[in-house]
Every structure is written in C-alpha cells, then in structure tokens.
C-alpha cells in the first residue's frame, strides 16, 4: 500500500526513464509502397520490395493489411478493415511483423473477429501472446497417435464413428440437415468430462454465415453454459472477404496457444465451403489463374495446411491436442464435388448427414454407411467397444434387408426378427438436438436394444423406453453408471448388474 501512496515526481521520472532505457532515437528507415488500385478491399501497391508474404502492413489512415501475393512490380494486399477507406496514391508501410492474433487466457468466453477485436461489446482482450495466423504444422517427431476419445454426446457418433483428440473429422451434408447442430452438441458435451480426462476448450469459427445464425449459436452456447469454455470467431457474410479468408487461421492460432499449454482444444470450422468461396473471390480479384469451378490452383493446399495444424502432441511436447471438425455443405448430397472431395481426402474421416434420413425423421440424420472414422477407433473406450459390435452387425443386416421390408409377412421368421431388431437400433440412435448423453448412458441404451430388451416393444415406443430407462438408471443405477464411466470393459459382475437393472426397469415400463 505504501508503494502506491508514495508516488512522486521523482518516481514517475524514474519509471519513464526505465521504460525508455532501450528506446533508440536513431533514424527510422521504412520500406513503403504506394496504393495503385483498390478492388473490393484487395489492394495492389507498388514498392514494398522488402516485404514478405503474410506480413502485416499499415496504411496511411491506420488501417492494417496483409500481404497475400508478391509480383515483380506489385504487392497484393488484403485489407483487414474498411476497404473503401483506402484511396489510390496513399502510402502503405511495412511493419516487419507476420500477421498475428493477440491471445490471452481471458479470451475464453468471448466473441471476436478474425483479427481479435471483440464483437460482444466487452473490453478488448488483454495483451498476451501474439500467435501467428500462418504457421507450419507440428512435425512427426512432435506428434503421437490419437488415443483419447473426444466424446460428442451423440450416440450414433460415439458408438459407430468415434472421434479421438487430435483427429480431423469432417461433417458433410446438404444445408439444413443438422451439421452445425452436431458440432454445437459436441461443444455442449464438453461441459461434462471424465475425471481422468482434461477439459476441452472449444473454438467455433463462423465463416460467411448470417449474423442472425451466429447470434443463435452464441445464444445456444450461453443457454447451455458452454460459453465460458468456448471462443467464437465470427466473420459473417457482411464482413470483408479478407476476414472470412483469415477466420479459420485465426481460430487455429488461438487453438495453438492453448495446445502449447498442454490443453485439449476442439475447433469447429463452420463452414469450409464458404471459406473456399472467399478464397476464390480473393484469387479472382487478384487475377490468379482460375482452375476447376474457378477455384485457384492452391485451394487444396489452403485447406490441407489449415487442417494439418490439428494435432495430438506427444507427452514430451506438453501432450496438448487440437481436434478439428470442419463442416462442408454439399449441393443435393453430391459428395463428389471439388471442395468436398478435397476435404474428405484431407481429413481422418467424415460424418455424412443425408436428407432422406432427415426427412424420414431419423435425427441426427447420419448415414452410417458413408460415414467413417479412420483413427477414432483407437481412442474408443473398452466399455463402448464391448457393446457396439452387436450394434454394427444389427445395423449392417438391417441396411441389407431394408429393401425387403415391404414384403412383410412373406419373409421368414429369421429375416423378420433381424429387420425388427434393425428398426429398433435405428430408433435408439435417434437423439434430440442439444441433448448430448454421457457415455455410460449411451452404453446402457445401446446394450438394452442389442440384447433384445426392446424386442417386445413396438419400434415407435423405443425412444420413450429409452427416456424412462435413462431416468431410472440415473435414479437407481448410479453404481453401475460409475462403473461404466471408468471406460473399462464390463466385468461379469457388471454385466449381471446391467441385466438385473434392466429387468427391474422393464417390470415398471408399460408399452
């Protein structure tokens, strides 16, 4: 306290002196350029001969920009602000810095734009570490294989298409089929994490979306208490195209800040189709040669270098991870279009949502046939693995026989029973939006259906059965749920307990 009250002229002068100790008053030589052209926020400038790609530059009026291309005579700059404010003939100078975003622990729970300016009306982010937007991904030596599950809370995903921490899993499908809902559910589910696992920090990157949609997502996160451990980066459709292009890179730069601290991060890119559009627009304005569907030649590299930054670091390097959930919007379910095939080949698997399933009331409308997780299996717990074998078989048999379902009574008893069981497995995988389920409850639901406890219940009552069953388990099966939460393969005693609890519940349930 005495230190605070003892402020006098002398101490102030001393502080100033200390601050200016290493200030050099030497002549400043700066590399500058002159704006020749401004096309929709993309600047062509002469000069800047010493500038490098990705370097931050400052215009005469204080607006910042980033060098996107260097020609023999010209530099191409994207404006990180109001593009119309830059006029022909104005000066632009180098800053010598690679474009970075300021990240501090207090960024959690905030809504920002891709250059780190707050959009939530709260004060600016405290000064922390400058994280470069463009950076080479971690090399093979720094990484280790995916071995920890990232639970989405969605039965269909956690059981059949499991995601591991550090994985890149694409969510693909037409518009309005619940792609964002899957990502948001996953974020909400990170609220509940197992005691032996680290909490996950979530980053949601909105690219080229309507402001109203972004506001809706923020509200959902708030209502579900998911915002305190999340960060939203928004570059909506009305923002300059340069910001839409930079948004995912800003997101992954923030993710790398937390990953370097050994923390686990989940990043959702919603969506990379619009990101590709933004980059195509920039490239066409820059007069770069257009390729297939007018996308530039480096569109694959754009997404591969972004998604390659998803990582599971080895324990020696802190053990942090970045899990990426890119979203791609298809047209009429065509996953063989240019951008979808690119991103499918980059990622470690995809969750395909289909309009036919959606229209048949199967939600989430995940097509288990086209969906795959290439590395997530290694991260799945033994407890979950022990129940999904039968689910997979039942689903596969159902898909094969579904075409014969219309023949009904003409089928033999075996086929009919397989069809009926298949129907029930489809029913049990249905799940309401924003209602993620813990792994023990998922295991119990799937186990009950695959072990025939719903065979005597009409298929349309399976969801009601599951709802009541979960309530019953939460009341009377705490010990069992705790046992399953350990992730270990259920022992004989546990299996007996599962049977007993389920039989007891069945006595109380009336179809």
């Amino acid at each position: 306290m005495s230190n605070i009250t003892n402020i006098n002229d002398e101490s102030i002068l001393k502080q100033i002196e200390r601050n200016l100790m290493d200030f050099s008053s030497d002549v400043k030589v700066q590399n500058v350029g002159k704006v020749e052209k401004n096309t929709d926020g993309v600047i062509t400038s002469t000069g800047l001969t010493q500038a490098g790609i990705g370097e931050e530059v400052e215009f005469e009026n204080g607006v910042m920009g980033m060098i996107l291309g260097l020609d023999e005579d010209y530099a191409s700059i994207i404006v990180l602000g109001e593009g119309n404010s830059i006029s022909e003939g104005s000066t632009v100078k180098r800053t010598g810095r690679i474009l970075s975003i300021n990240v501090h622990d207090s960024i959690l729970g905030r809504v920002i734009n891709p250059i780190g300016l707050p959009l939530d009306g709260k004060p600016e982010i405290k000064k922390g570490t400058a994280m470069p937007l463009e950076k080479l991904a971690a090399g093979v030596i720094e990484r280790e294989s995916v071995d920890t599950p990232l639970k989405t809370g969605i039965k269909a995903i956690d059981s059949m298409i499991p995601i591991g921490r550090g994985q890149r899993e694409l969510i693909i499908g037409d518009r309005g089929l619940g792609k964002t809902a899957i990502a948001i559910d996953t974020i909400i589910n990170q609220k509940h994490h197992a005691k032996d696992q680290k909490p996950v920090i979530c980053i949601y990157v909105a690219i080229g979306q309507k402001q109203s949609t972004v506001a809706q997502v923020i509200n959902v996160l708030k209502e579900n208490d998911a915002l305190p451990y999340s960060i939203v980066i928004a570059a909506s459709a009305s923002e300059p195209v340069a910001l839409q292009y930079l948004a995912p890179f800003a997101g992954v730069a923030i993710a790398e800040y937390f990953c370097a601290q050994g923390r686990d991060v989940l990043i959702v890119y919603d969506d990379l189709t619009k990101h590709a559009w933004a980059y195509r627009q920039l490239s066409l304005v820059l007069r770069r040669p257009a390729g297939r569907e007018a996308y530039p030649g480096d569109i694959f590299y754009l997404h591969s270098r972004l998604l390659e930054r998803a990582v599971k670091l080895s324990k020696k390097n802190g053990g942090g991870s970045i899990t990426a959930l890119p979203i791609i919007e298809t047209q009429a379910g065509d996953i063989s279009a240019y951008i979808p095939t690119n991103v499918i080949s980059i990622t470690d698997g995809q969750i395909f949502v289909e309009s036919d399933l959606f229209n048949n009331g199967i939600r989430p409308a995940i097509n288990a046939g086209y969906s795959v997780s290439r590395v997530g299996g290694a991260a799945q717990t033994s407890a979950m693995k022990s129940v999904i074998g039968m689910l997979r078989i039942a689903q596969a048999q159902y898909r094969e026989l579904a075409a014969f379902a219309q023949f009904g009574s003409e089928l033999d008893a075996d086929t009919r029973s397989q069809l009926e069981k298949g129907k029930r497995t489809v029913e049990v995988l249905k799940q309401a939006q924003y209602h993620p389920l813990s792994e023990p409850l998922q295991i119990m639901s799937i186990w009950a259906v695959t072990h025939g406890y719903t065979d005597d219940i009409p298929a349309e009552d399976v969801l009601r059965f599951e709802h009541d069953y979960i309530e019953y388990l939460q009341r009377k099966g705490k010990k069992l749920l705790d046992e399953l939460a350990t992730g270990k393969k259920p022992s004989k005693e546990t299996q007996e307990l599962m049977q007993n609890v389920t039989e007891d519940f069945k006595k109380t349930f009336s179809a």
Partner: protein
Amino acid sequence: MKTKLIKKLAQESFANNKLDENRVKIISNKLKRKDLRSYLRVLKILDRESTLYVSMPITDDASVQNTLQIRFPNKKIVYTLNKDLLAGVKIVDNDLLYDFTLQGKIERLIGRFYDTND
C-alpha cells in the same frame, strides 16, 4: 508485346536519368493501346525510382538541399513543404522512407510508451 520488351522500351525512354519527351513520343506512337498502358505504368515506376521526394518544414534550407544534391547526384529532387514535421527532413527514395524529423521521433516515443504500458 512481352512485358520484358516494354520494360526495356521504358528504360530507353530515359536519357541522363531524365525522361526524354521525344523518345517517349516515338515509342508511344508505335505501341498498341494495350501495350501503351503497360508502357505508361512502367514509365511511372521508373520515374518514381529516379525521383527523390523530400518533405521539410521549411523549403529554403540551402544546406539540406546542397547535401541532398551531393548525395543523390543522379536523382531529380522534389521538395514539399510540411509544417507538421516540426523540424528535420523526411526523404522518400523509391520505396524507402528515411525519417529524420522531430515529428517522427515524437511519434516513435509515443508508440514506445503504449507498448511498454499496455
């Protein structure tokens, strides 16, 4: 026409580091409209490269003018008056800006304060 050739023509339009009007007339009369555009663009760049832009708070400082003429004998020097600079001189040589002004020093000092007290 190839860009390299246009660049060569633009370079040939200069005599003794100054733009030669006659040469420009001859060349421009022979160029097509599209090439003429590129030619003018390169001429502008070369002209800027051969010109030194000097801003000072006073224009009649003979000592500065003499020093600059000795230091840059082959360049055309354009002087502009800018009282905001307070004292000193600001020189733009192609894409290099040398700031010897008091205004620049004060600005750098303010920037330094912001950086250390952020």
